[in-house]
């Protein structure tokens, strides 16, 4: 099935968010996840199963945004 991750479509087999993050090598403690525009609390990664057409935003902290 197809999902959209950070704007790019990806083909995956049905799996939980936790499983997906592992599959792409992302440490769940270091990111925030938005599922179809709503924040997905870390506690719900495990029982949340990704569905066809889901839109995932996975973000983390990067350097920047301070001001001179």
């Amino acid at each position, binding site marked *: 099935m197809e999902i959209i991750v950070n704007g790019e479509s990806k083909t995956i087999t049905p799996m939980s968010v936790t499983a997906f993050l592992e599959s792409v090598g992302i440490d769940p403690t270091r990111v925030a996840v938005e599922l179809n525009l709503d924040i997905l609390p870390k506690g719900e990664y495990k029982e949340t199963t990704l569905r066809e057409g889901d839109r995932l935003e996975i973000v983390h902290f990067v*350097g920047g945004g301070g001001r001179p």
Partner: protein
Amino acid sequence: MSANDKLVIAGRSFTSRLMVGTGKYADFPQMVQAIELSGAEIVTVAVRRVNISDRSKESLLDHLDTKKYTLLPNTAGCYTADDAVRTCRLAREAGLSDFVKLEVLGDEKTLFPDNEELLKAATILVKEGFTVLPYTTDDPIVCKKLEDIGCAAVMPLGAPIGSGLGIRNPYNIRIILDTVKVPVIVDAGVGTASDAAIAMELGCDGVLMNTGIAGARDPLAMAEAMNLAVRAGRLAYRAGRIPKKLYATASSPVEGMIE
């Protein structure tokens, strides 16, 4: 004396009055050293999409000791209240605290804040329990509104982001200090050490900068300079400077001059 002179934001107290960004450094080790030398306890970070395809890149958090530094996620790059609010929610989920540096830019060229959108976003975020530190212009009316909304501090710019022009309008900053009770933190414009000292001498509670340090020829030396300058300016503010006069009088006793 500085011992008991803490900066208190939303009930949390900090010894350093300098806050620094994490952008524009050559590499992570340089960034870490610079932050160390700056003495900052609050460090702003941006929120961005994880690069799925290429996971090689190290993460900022591999380098920043979150026990030692308070991370202040910012909404840099947001041009609408909605984007900023959404970014703050993600930041809270990704991080550990309710602190956010709220900025809503009005224009890509000047990076001036859009205060109309800023006020909308601040209203929503305060309701959702965020501790909001808004980047704004040196406008006393907007600063008062941000305080009334419930922001934990106000962060007027000294000059446009990255301009290095220092505190272009100390008069407005002084009026803001007379107008609000929350901490006033100058954010943007500081180009060199004296700029930071001047901000503190005006009575500001803190200074936030990034390019001023990261963009210097020697970021480590400038980080140390800013550390000293903020402390110098704060001490001078508390010490009570001499009045300015057109002329003055010698500091030597006149009695007993040889003839």
